[in-house]
């Protein structure tokens, strides 16, 4: 094939359309994986659980992506995009797992035929159908907020993933095992930034403290199990988040102490409202930006 111009070469039909852009090459991230539901597990519970964990990853990924072109230095922008990409990958796997368990709600009919489960779930649910925690939906504003929130979110998620490696659902166990080294990089990266900001100038210290004071109340509900989590923990498939409390608080307490920051009070345990679809007004505009293209052109590829 000898095309005259670069443009001709790009537009010529080669019969392998996936070659050009990653945008057209996306396919099922669980292709070929055995997605049988383990015996004795309610598929609705497993799917609902994967939605919670997948939505946390998807929404935090989107918040991190908002820093691209806005981070204070280029290297940090690249880091935030990388971390966002890892989380997006985790979200794809988890949303696909939710889809394979049949938990699609009305997203399936809204998306129409030909749209993969993960995309139907990501692009065709409204805010009230999302199951993410209040921790990940919070808008950033300040750079210090982004790093303190990333520290808290990745510490919680890492503690969970370490335990989920032993899940009786082999798919969930494999997704978790893959996530552990990634989340370790995220947590340690965020922790070093919190040290740098907390132990930096008077200004950076004040902004890091403000960030911690804003993020801490958002951990309300993170350590309270929903009915789904309680049942799945009993079945050896999920983890009761109360089990994570001591480890997460210990890590965060140590980082803040080293950073010279005051540990804000821990909120009392409360029902996790985000897991029930109750979110602050900040989630809807985030989803608008995330979903606008997919909704305007359902089934579109580029």
């Amino acid at each position, binding site marked *: 094939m000898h095309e005259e111009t670069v443009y001709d070469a790009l537009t010529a039909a080669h019969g392998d359309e996936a070659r050009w852009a990653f945008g057209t090459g996306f396919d099922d991230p669980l292709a070929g994986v055995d997605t049988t539901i383990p015996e004795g597990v309610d598929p609705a519970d497993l799917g609902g659980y994967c939605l919670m964990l997948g939505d946390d990853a998807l929404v935090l990924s989107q918040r991190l992506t908002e820093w691209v072109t806005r981070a204070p230095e280029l290297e940090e922008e690249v880091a935030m995009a*990388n971390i966002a990409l890892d989380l997006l990958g985790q979200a794809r*796997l988890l949303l696909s797992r939710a889809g394979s368990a049949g938990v699609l709600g009305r997203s399936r009919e809204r998306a129409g035929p030909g749209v993969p489960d993960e995309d139907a779930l990501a692009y065709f649910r409204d805010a009230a159908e999302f199951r993410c925690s209040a921790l990940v939906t919070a808008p950033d504003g300040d750079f210090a907020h982004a790093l303190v929130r990333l520290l808290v979110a990745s510490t919680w998620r890492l503690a969970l993933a370490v335990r989920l490696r032993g899940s009786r659902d082999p798919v969930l166990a494999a997704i978790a095992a*893959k996530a552990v080294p990634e989340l370790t*990089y995220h947590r340690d990266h965020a922790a070093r930034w919190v040290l740098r900001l907390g132990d930096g100038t008077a200004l950076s210290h004040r902004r890091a403290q403000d960030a911690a004071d804003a993020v801490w109340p958002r951990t309300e509900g993170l350590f309270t199990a929903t009915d789904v989590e309680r049942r799945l923990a009993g079945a050896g498939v999920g983890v009761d988040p109360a089990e994570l409390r001591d480890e997460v608080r210990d890590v965060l307490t140590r980082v803040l102490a080293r950073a010279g920051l005051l540990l804000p009070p821990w909120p009392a345990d409360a029902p996790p409202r985000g897991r029930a679809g109750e979110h602050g007004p900040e989630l809807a505009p985030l989803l608008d930006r995330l979903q606008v293209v997919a909704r305007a052109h359902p089934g579109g590829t580029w």
Partner: protein
Amino acid sequence: MSGRTLRRSARATAPSLDPRSVAETVVDPELPVLTLADLGVLRDVRREDDGTVVVEITPTYSGCPAMGVMRADLVHALHEAGFDRTDVRTVLSPAWTTDWITAEGRRKLAQAGIAPPGPAPERAPGPVPLELGPSRRSAACPLCGSADTEEVSEFGATACTALRRCRQCQEPFEHVKEL
């Protein structure tokens, strides 16, 4: 990008090659100096009784955006070699580690100016210890060989690389970070 790196062979009427040797020629779309086999991403190639070639690949990172391209490149290369029935499957477990990059892969990386990874951190069953100090990773400069290098950023242009700089020859370089 990736399409151009495929080995184009004249299409045979009947496959004469071993499907494994065909799959082993397919290169990574993001690090085209390496084949998927060098990278340790190609986990298995086998022929079923009905003639279908089953290929198993594993993602490097959860968010690896190149999986779809790898899949298409594998199918394409096998078709070109006369294998019409292919089934490329994803395997997630055990999770990929940089320890699976072959000696040949490491040599090619270094030759391309990318520092190969050291041994991956041990995967212990319990909580992951917090690492607050500067990263303890080290890498010799792939250009001048000096061990006197520093990490500029833990995150580079692709998910699997960090950015480093050589204090000796002053050149920046990429380092495939241990995973």
